[in-house]
């Protein structure tokens, strides 16, 4: 198009013409509008939220008119939500806000998000290879119980972690045999795994511990104290003393991104999930890849479970401890569009809403419930395709039959 008249390409002009950029900027501004009312900003009038929110909505409108309808609508919705939340924040007292929103909220968000990150990344591997895994909840629960049992019997959290992951792998292997070799319906099989895990952990919890908390003094997964950060003003309480598994989960996200998108193994996994017949034709062993991916999902979900009981929970277990976290992880994976970074962002968002819900319980039970239900509502909206349609791997959930 060299003959076209050269328009002046300022960076702002470029940005305005790119609907994807305006869309995401609008969403970010919408979120920012909500944060203006709370510490560390603590704006006491709703004006600032209103201004930023309106800019977000304008970005959204610009995006819609340039053809990215869903993204733009998302930005508009975030802007409206941001104004609303920012306004609500100005209505409550500064003292309450300081109790609910402080640096340790960040630490708590990570703590709530980490089990979700492990399970969601695990689920992503399984689904990328073409096996739906709604048994994440059960695998996580198995990890939670057997992990703390291993730490109790073996005397070390390392043993606990290994035992928990091994049991998760065994359960995943059983599921894999049914889902891959026996070509059972994967939803039915996953449901069975959840029931089975609930029964087994409950049974042995009563058999071994009489349904009481696991004995005191169990070796727990340690926190990592960062000496050069923990003394700082805001960062100290936020990230200065996080659990080891939280840092592992960060590395897991990066590692899984590299494995899935930058290595031959990842290419094979994705090929099996998108078109197993074609993968088979070029010599990939579809069954082996799927077995590996499902077992890995069990290991990771169980690791999330071990963190829940032996890290976050301080070495205790109680009946049905995961209480739906496996399903939130599944939701995070879907919300994150079957991508490691997306799943991580969604897990953080859901972890944040859990952390907020916990803190709000004292002041306003109904607002607390609202934040508890948020992950499910957002996921329902996401699968409905209102904001950025999610797309599952093409062969997800379809058993493959060798020829």
């Amino acid at each position, binding site marked *: 198009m060299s003959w076209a008249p050269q328009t002046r390409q300022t960076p702002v002009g470029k940005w305005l013409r790119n609907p994807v950029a305006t869309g995401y900027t609008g969403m970010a501004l919408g979120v920012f509008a909500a944060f203006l009312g709370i510490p560390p900003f603590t704006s006491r009038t709703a004006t600032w939220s209103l201004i930023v929110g309106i800019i977000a909505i304008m970005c959204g409108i610009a995006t819609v008119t340039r053809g990215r309808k869903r993204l733009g609508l998302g930005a508009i919705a975030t802007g409206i939500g941001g104004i609303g939340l920012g306004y609500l924040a100005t209505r409550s007292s500064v003292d309450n806000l300081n109790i609910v929103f402080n640096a340790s909220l960040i630490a708590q968000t990570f703590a709530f998000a980490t089990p979700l990150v492990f399970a969601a990344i695990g689920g992503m591997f399984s689904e990328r290879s073409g096996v739906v895994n*709604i048994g994440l909840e059960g695998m996580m629960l198995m990890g939670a119980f057997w992990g703390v049992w291993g730490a109790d019997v073996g005397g070390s959290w390392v043993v606990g972690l290994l035992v928990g992951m091994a049991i998760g792998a065994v359960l995943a292997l*059983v599921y894999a045999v*049914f889902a891959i*070799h*026996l*070509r*059972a*319906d994967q*939803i*039915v*099989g996953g*449901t*069975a*795994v*959840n*029931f*089975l*895990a*609930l*029964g*087994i952990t*409950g*049974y*042995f919890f*009563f*058999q071994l511990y009489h*349904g009481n908390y696991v004995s005191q003094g169990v070796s727990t997964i340690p926190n990592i104290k960062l000496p050069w950060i923990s003394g700082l003003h805001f960062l100290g309480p936020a990230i200065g003393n996080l659990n080891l598994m939280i840092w592992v989960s960060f590395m897991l996200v990066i590692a899984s991104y590299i494995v899935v998108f930058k290595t031959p193994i990842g290419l094979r996994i994705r090929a099996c999930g998108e078109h197993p017949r074609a993968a088979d034709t070029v010599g990939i062993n579809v069954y082996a890849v799927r077995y590996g991916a499902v077992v890995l999902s069990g290991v990771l979900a169980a690791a999330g479970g071990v963190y829940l009981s032996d890290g976050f929970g301080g070495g205790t277990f109680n009946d049905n401890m995961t*209480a*739906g976290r496996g*399903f939130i992880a*599944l*939701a995070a994976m*879907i919300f994150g569009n079957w991508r490691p970074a997306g799943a991580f962002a969604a897990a953080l968002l859901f972890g944040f809403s859990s952390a907020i819900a916990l803190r709000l319980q004292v002041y306003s*039970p*109904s607002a607390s*419930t*609202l934040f*508890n*239900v948020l992950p*499910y*509502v957002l*996921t*329902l909206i996401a*699968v*409905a*395709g209102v904001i950025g*349609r999610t797309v*599952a791997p093409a062969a997800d959930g*379809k*058993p493959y*039959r060798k020829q």
Partner: protein
Amino acid sequence: MSADPTVPPEAPEEAAETGTLAARLALKQRAGGLVVPILTALLAFVLGGVVVLATGHNPLLAYRDIFNGAGLNWIFHPTTNIASTDAYNLSQTLLQTTTLILCGLAVAFAFRCGMFNIGGQGQYLVGLYVANWLGYEFAGMRPLPHILLAVGGATLAGAAWAGIAGFLKATVGAHEVISTIMLNWIAIWGGIWLFGDGGPLQNVANKSVPISNDVAASAQLPVFWGVQGLQGLDVGFFVALAALVVFALILNRTTLGFEVRAVGFNPEAAAYGGISVKKNLIRAMAISGAFAGLAGALDMLGYLYHFGTSDIPASSVGFLGIAVALLGRNTAIGTGIGALVFGALLYGTTHGLSSNVIDPSLAGNLTYMIQGLVVLFVGADVLILYIWNARRKLRPKSKSKTHPVGASA
């Protein structure tokens, strides 16, 4: 099912194995008949027994106690006198069976349309909430219209809740499993908010505890076996039995049922034959939800009358409905029998067990294990077919010509 027009007489195995869920189920029904579900249940009970044995309990004694605890030994000396322990236990088991029949039908109906309704729990809860609200709010109505209003409202609410998933599936293709899981949790948290501290439907008299109001006397279902107000067996049991008949009639004797099954067996072929796939997905889901909502209504108006928010996440009958429907091969008679099996397990494990034999807490979790194993084995049609074929190969050739009796409703 031999005169089933949607099932070709010899469906190729390949198509059935890679095809839709309903196609696979049809294949299994022809392959195994009654034998396979019984085999599945037996295998699950045996494996559950192995765990019981490995942890130092006697499985035979444990199962005997559960059998007696569920009141199933009533058949050896039947009596209508509710003062008899066996009769009382049986009435309680049947109360659980009532709920499980309807929760099972909620799963089975969607299955026949090729969908997996994992959201029976949420639909059941919505029915429970609406029945409680209508049962309390309209106190002073005459009993019959009040009951009809509460039951009807709860049924419609369940249908609407499931209808959301059906609508999303039909319009934007959202997978019903994901949307119903999300709707389950939204229903759970919605109930905690509605009936919790400061919630709009919290008990008006006592604002310090998160419980619901009591259903007015005019909305309570009459009890026919036992004592009203003390968990007697109410007329809801007959409603559930009637629902089994309605389920079979809709599926096998109406145009609606024909279309639903056609869509479940092969959506492309159904669409080619002029059947609206979208309409039937929504309809099948809504009818499924109606069954679950009805279950919630009968529980609330039959014997619960009120509930606390802590009961909401603890309830799992909607999930048990999955095992019931799968064990019953998604047929009316099968669902009825499956509901009785799991109803007996549910009540028999909570009650009257000696801790010398097996602790009730252990037995309760044994129920979950058996439930999981049943669902696991039911899902593996290839395994079942393999066992079935291996059994036929073992028999002498002269006998192998006798075909298995395809007993299904």
